[in-house]
């Protein structure tokens, strides 16, 4: 669907108003550069970071960490989710541990992760893994459980072998819910990488934030925050698109 001109006008109005007010404060001389820089200062910093290559390096470093942690979280969440939805005994076996671990925010694992793995890659990937695992696990299990049992009865009538049911009924039936889990998981993973990098890292977007603070450079901090927001939105947009391409039958 093509959006109309007036839609884009409304869509962009708020960010433009915010920028205008911000700029207005600067012209009135109310901004102090060491707490709140002017919009143009941030543009300058951005250009600097593009020129010296730090912008791209930080984004790719963070993104690769997310990819690793999310990949492991997806595989584990998907597998454990399907197993616990299909086998009540497996669910009973894992339920208590999962329910107790679930409310612990991944960030609360950072101290332990650093003690276990040091401040290298592993500790960050581990935190991201935790962030991605739970939403994917929960939504996969929920999705499989919500499949109508009448489809399994149908499969019985046509003597469809059990292993085939996984591909033909379980996964497609749960796919909408799994995709919701994946979107939440990617969102969480991105939050986790920033948090983990703020505490101990020498690169990445999260490191940009803590670096900017210790250098008293709010422009760097704000640039880092904008990157987190923009990259997060782009990733979610891509996942929405994949969802649409993948689930064509609804």
């Amino acid at each position: 669907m093509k959006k109309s001109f007036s839609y884009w006008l409304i869509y962009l109005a708020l960010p433009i108003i915010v920028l205008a007010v911000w700029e207005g404060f600067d012209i009135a001389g109310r901004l102090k550069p060491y707490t709140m820089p002017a919009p143009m200062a941030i543009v300058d910093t951005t250009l600097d970071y593009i020129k010296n290559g730090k912008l791209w390096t930080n984004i790719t470093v963070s993104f690769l960490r997310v990819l690793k942690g999310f990949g492991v979280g997806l595989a584990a969440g998907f597998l454990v989710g399907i197993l616990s939805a299909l086998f009540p005994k497996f669910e009973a076996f894992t339920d208590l541990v999962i329910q107790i671990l679930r409310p612990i925010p991944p960030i609360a694992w950072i101290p332990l992760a650093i003690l276990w793995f040091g401040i290298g890659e592993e500790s960050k990937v581990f935190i991201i893994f935790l962030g991605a695992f739970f939403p994917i696990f929960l939504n996969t299990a929920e999705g499989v459980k919500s499949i109508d049992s009448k489809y399994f009865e149908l499969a019985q009538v046509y003597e469809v072998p059990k292993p085939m049911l996984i591909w033909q009924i379980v996964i497609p039936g749960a796919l909408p819910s799994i995709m919701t889990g994946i979107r939440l998981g990617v969102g969480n993973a991105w939050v986790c990488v920033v948090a983990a990098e703020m505490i101990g890292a020498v690169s990445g977007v999260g490191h940009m934030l803590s670096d900017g603070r210790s250098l008293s450079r709010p422009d760097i901090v704000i640039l880092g925050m904008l990157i987190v927001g923009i990259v997060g939105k782009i990733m979610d947009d891509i996942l929405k698109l994949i969802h649409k391409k993948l689930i064509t039958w609804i």
Partner: protein
Amino acid sequence: MANIIEIKKLNKVFRSKENEVQALENIDLTIEEGSFVSIIGGSGCGKSTLLRVIGGLETDYEGEYLFDNAPVKGPSRDKGFIFQDHRLLPWLTVENNIRFSLPKEKKKDDALIRENLELVGLTGFEKSYPRQLSGGMAQRVAIARALANKPRILLLDEPFGALDAITRMNLQEQMLKIWHEEKITMIIVTHDIDEAVYLGGTVVVMTPRPGRIKRIQKVDLGTPRRRTGTPFTLARDEIYREFFSDAEIPIEYNI
């Protein structure tokens, strides 16, 4: 012809913590190969349960049930079952829904799929998803899916219950045509006396609590069958009387 179904003194009780429901009591029923049988009765009289027993979906009962002279362990392709809902998998196209039901060695048999879609008048809808079909079309795909498996017997549980009168009559004609051409034994469960009399060469009348067979009536409407005229009216009136003698209320309210 030989009997394809022999049921003797069959009882089925559903037990739960709170209560017991005798869904079927002392059912005796034999069905000849190649016949068309209607089962009719008010809601809750055990029609679906009886059909599920015949289809092998319900195996926990007392008494004897032989399909083709052998006991039944469970559902199978040769006992095609059409559920009240079409039960197509929403994520598969029409042709893949049929493919899903086929045995391994026939999964690639596109001609078989095409043939059966043609039989129910749905050529050209191979690539459609179930959501793109009307209720009647979806039910026809379900029928094509069952037929593609070359069943000995086709069991239909109120297959046209949710459809409008015109679509319903069209599908009844199609079922009769398929019955003539494919020579499959058919058993249809219905609420509708007209449907029961029009389709069934034999009409089995059931009554509830406990679910029993009250009467088995032969119907001969000649070939081809006609929805109007004396034989149809007479047969229908007789079935009507079965229900009115019980209670002075129409079947729809006989709950």
